């Protein structure tokens, strides 16, 4: 498709869209000294409204999306995004609210509805996770991870000690080590055993790093889709040296109403509202990554937080003086938080619990249906997702591309790295049995056809706007804008 710049026609009138022309309006040259003005106007598109509408409607048609395609992308929880939560987030009473209004004394009264949304959401997340308090500020999952490990750093610093080692299982998401490094920690890998965190390896790590051990970052169920069966031991080992346990909430959709991470001993948790709580992924953001903590970490949470006062009004809490500071500019990605809040209000306790139950049911059903097609390394109940290897002699990448050709988004591939030629499907609870059956048939067809004609599979997808793209050329030539071409 042509770019919007190629659609552009110099001088095409675009003025009327936002502003009525006013002949009396002074120009910038009348209002500012010449040396403070730019030499030439920015070369932005010059299009009529209809040109713009057609262009972006055309681009939308090139995408797969949850609304159009089954999207079983492991570790991403691509569940259906309810339309009513979208509608709620667009209510002008929320969308037009300036964040700084709430910081004025009289302004706080003018923002009571929005403040209640923040307070309610924090309360809901506490109840779902068993944590004592949440900050809603982090603007994505990785941003929540950074917040969480910064809280761990603050905890140890407040005790007058510098602990530098953060343990991370080898199956963890790559963001864990990157986030730990940003907070000044040295990421030390712990090898897993049979897909699980190995308490013996942990004990060895604790013995080795002793007083320098700050914490352990865990994903649970882990990135293989398995529940950690020796969790209690793990918690005990880490807490024995007053190190803290971090829970990466990427897989929270598996356990809601079945286990609360606060109850079992985790000290810090980040959630991904865009995964577990059905806010749309937006093609790569915006997300939201609230962070919950246990009692002893409450004073370190980013400020401000919202509380419900004795008179029923909502306002900001008084700063503890020990806060790690400010992670987001205000109170978090409010528009995203609002959608998640609406989702929880709509589902309630029963609906939230059912979401996890059906997510796990769907994953296990799919696992059973595919175990004779793919190689499933762990023959046991999985949680909300599972891992499988491509059949001998086939590549996960080719199977993924073959599925695109049949109208399905591919599962996550080549993650986790521990599994050879890995495919990781996560169906979520919002998909029906028919969809799962049809998808499993499609996987079967791709594998069978691929055996008969590997050449053809290597060409897939052949029916999409583009075939496989030359990523090597992209990295070598670096055409990142229209002007670098």
């Amino acid at each position, binding site marked *: 498709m042509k770019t919007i710049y190629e659609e552009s026609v110099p001088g095409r009138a675009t003025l009327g869209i936002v502003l009525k022309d006013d002949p009396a309006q002074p120009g910038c040259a009348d209002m500012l000294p010449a040396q403070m003005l730019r030499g030439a106007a920015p070369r932005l598109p010059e299009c009529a409204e209809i040109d713009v509408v057609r262009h972006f409607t055309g681009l939308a048609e090139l995408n797969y999306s949850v609304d159009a395609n089954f999207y079983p992308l492991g570790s991403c929880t691509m569940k259906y995004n309810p339309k009513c939560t979208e509608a709620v987030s667009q209510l002008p009473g929320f969308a037009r609210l300036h964040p700084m209004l709430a910081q004025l004394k009289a302004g706080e009264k003018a923002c009571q509805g929005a403040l209640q949304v923040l307070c309610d959401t924090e309360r809901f997340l506490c109840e779902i996770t068993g944590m004592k308090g949440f900050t809603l500020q982090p603007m994505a999952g990785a941003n929540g991870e950074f917040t969480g490990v910064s809280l761990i750093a603050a905890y140890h610093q407040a005790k007058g000690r510098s602990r530098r080692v953060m343990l991370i299982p080898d199956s963890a998401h790559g963001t864990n080590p990157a986030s730990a490094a940003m907070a000044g920690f040295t990421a030390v890998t712990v090898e897993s055993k049979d897909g699980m965190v190995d308490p013996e390896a942990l004990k060895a790590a604790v013995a080795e790093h002793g007083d320098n051990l700050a914490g352990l970052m865990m994903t649970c169920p882990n990135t293989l889709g398995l529940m950690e069966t020796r969790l209690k031991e793990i918690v005990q080992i880490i807490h024995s040296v007053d190190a803290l346990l971090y829970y990466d909430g990427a897989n929270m959709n598996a356990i809601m109403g079945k286990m609360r991470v606060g109850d079992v001993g985790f000290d810090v948790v980040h959630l991904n509202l865009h995964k577990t709580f059905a806010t749309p992924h937006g093609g790569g953001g915006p997300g939201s990554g609230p962070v919950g903590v246990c009692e002893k970490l409450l004073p370190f949470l980013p400020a401000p937080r919202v509380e419900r006062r004795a008179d029923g009004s909502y306002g900001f809490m008084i700063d503890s003086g020990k806060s790690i500071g400010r992670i987001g500019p205000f109170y978090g990605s409010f528009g995203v938080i609002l959608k998640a809040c609406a989702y929880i209000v709509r589902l309630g306790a029963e609906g939230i619990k059912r979401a996890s139950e059906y997510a796990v049911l769907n994953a296990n059903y799919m696992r059973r249906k595919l175990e004779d097609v793919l190689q499933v390394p762990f023959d046991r109940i999985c949680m909300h997702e599972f891992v499988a290897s491509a059949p001998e002699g086939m590549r996960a990448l080719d199977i993924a591309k073959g599925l695109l050709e049949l109208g399905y988004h591919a599962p996550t591939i080549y993650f986790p790295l521990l599994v050879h030629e890995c495919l990781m499907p996560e169906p979520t609870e919002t998909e029906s049995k028919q969809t799962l059956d049809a998808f499993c048939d499609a996987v079967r067809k791709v594998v069978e056809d691929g055996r008969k004609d590997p050449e053809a599979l290597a060409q897939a997808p052949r029916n999409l706007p583009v075939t496989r793209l030359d*990523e*090597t050329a992209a*990295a*070598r030539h670096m055409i990142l804008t229209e002007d670098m071409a």
Partner: protein
Amino acid sequence: MSDPKELKYSKTHEWVRVEGEEAVVGITQFAQDALGDITYVEVPAEGDAVEQEKECGSVESVKAASDLISPVTGTVVAVNAELENAPEVVNQDPYGKGWMFKVKLAGPVEGLLDADAYAKVCAEEAH
């Protein structure tokens, strides 16, 4: 393709060709093959001090990145400028045109493997 007998190798897959008081450094056939199509090579600058077994640059492909670990200690006296615009040379000719930098050695070269010992390292890693 077997690894040239006249070169020395590190366990981290760099090769060294000693030329009197100087040494030329590059990455091995095994390393370039494991990385795939190389898209970028970052080498130390002329005049930089490098130390054996210390990171001194990086090599990137589309899906991977690998640190370049200096196999020798000394001062960089020349770098292969061609790699900036044509990193694929490392894939095509890792022991020739794909050389990365040349070092004036601080002392004798020690602690490296010969071609046979290096071949064993590769065989183990390939499993």
